[in-house]
């Protein structure tokens, strides 16, 4: 039932913060888009050590590119592909990029609100 500390960071700080956590012995728990605030997507990456956890949270504009942390945390590639497939978040330099083929879907980026799908 641990909630953990939520750290708000900018997307440019992500690699440094992730590396710090990695060196602190944290494991990756999950990465997700948790909601939309105005135009932006709010991303939450959760890391855990033992029973406690830390969440890194950042705001990403739909046009922004997020740098992948899969070179720091290997399993991150799955979550990053998932975020790309379901929400259309642009992520660069994923160690194993399935290019939108992880989820076999008819509708691309289904979790993105419909008005902007055409763009």
């Amino acid at each position, binding site marked *: *039932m641990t*909630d953990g500390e939520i750290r708000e960071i900018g997307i440019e700080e992500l690699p440094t913060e992730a590396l710090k956590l990695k060196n602190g012995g944290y*494991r990756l*728990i999950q990465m997700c888009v948790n*909601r939309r605030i105005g135009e932006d997507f709010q991303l939450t990456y959760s890391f855990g050590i033992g*029973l406690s*956890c830390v969440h890194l949270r950042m705001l990403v504009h739909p046009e922004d590119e997020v740098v992948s942390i899969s070179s720091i945390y290997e399993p991150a590639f799955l979550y990053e592909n998932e975020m790309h497939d379901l929400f259309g978040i642009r992520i660069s330099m994923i160690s194993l990029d399935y290019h939108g*083929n*992880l989820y*076999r879907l008819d509708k691309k980026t289904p979790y993105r609100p419909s008005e902007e799908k055409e763009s």
Partner: protein
Amino acid sequence: MSTRSIVPFGPQHPVLPEPIHLDLVLEDEKVVEAVPSIGFVHRGLEQLVEKRDFQTYVYVAERICGICSFMHGMSYCEAVEKIMNIEIPARAKYLRTIWCEMSRIHSHLLWLGLLADAFGFESLFMQSWRIRETILDMFEESTGGRVIFSVNKIGGQRRDMENSMLRGFLPKLEQVEAELEAITGAFLSDRAVNTRLRDVGILTKEQAHDLGAVGPFMRASGIEFDMRLQGYDAYKDLYFRPVTSTECDSYARCKVRIGEIFQSINLIRQAIDKIPEGEIAAPVKGLPNGEAFVRVEQPRGEALYYVCGDGKKFLERFRVRTPTFANLPGLLQTLKGCQLADVPILILTIDPCISCTER
């Protein structure tokens, strides 16, 4: 010179009842790489929170997966309860714990059966599932359902178990324990079974740690960790230690799961012994406003739930990171370098639940 070829595995495959799809890159009989693609069971359940209000969604959450159905419903409720600051009554906590452990026994027995089927030991498959029926009878007696129970609600439980019923469970558990002991030898000491499991699909402790493996898959690689140690529900009052093994192979995963069934039986006994009298549900007032992360230990490993509400009847976001998803990188690692004939066993050793993974 060996030739490379790509063999599609699934979605309709005799070994697994569920549709999983992998593209296996082979060099002769050796797997070089495995590329997963999912979506055959993808329903978009996370998005359904926009159409079902937060109290009705309990029943949808339960149907994320029919094997860990109780735990999905329960964890969703706990996340919402956390946002709304509802403390559920002590008896409800114990009821949840008992049903959780029963789910674990039924899930692990189911897995043992499927594993036996994968290495071609059909009578062992039948035996495992026969034992499992006793647990399903207990579920049917206490909830009315065999696999989908609908006994959770926000604030507690919808049904109580009478003390006489709980006492009646004790001899049944004894029977399950004795029957399981009888087949444990076949899984762990049989020479033919050993040749199929020993040293197959090694995942070292470091790999398990770095690849984010969870649950029995991780514990079989020697990491002693279990989300139940957080002491949620009644676990804080019960004594247990995570079951681990150091062999890091498929045999270890089988051993850990068998150990966990005995552990769960023990936990249910402790809970029946300590369960307090009282209410089974707390009143729910208002609407969820806020967010919460909840981590629980499911039969397949740690699951994380994220619920976010903004004071409306419909939640803003619901997210679940299921154990199978976390175990996929580990699976892809163990598949590298294995023989094509071992692929079904390796896929099974993470106890995949595709319906959880794809939601």
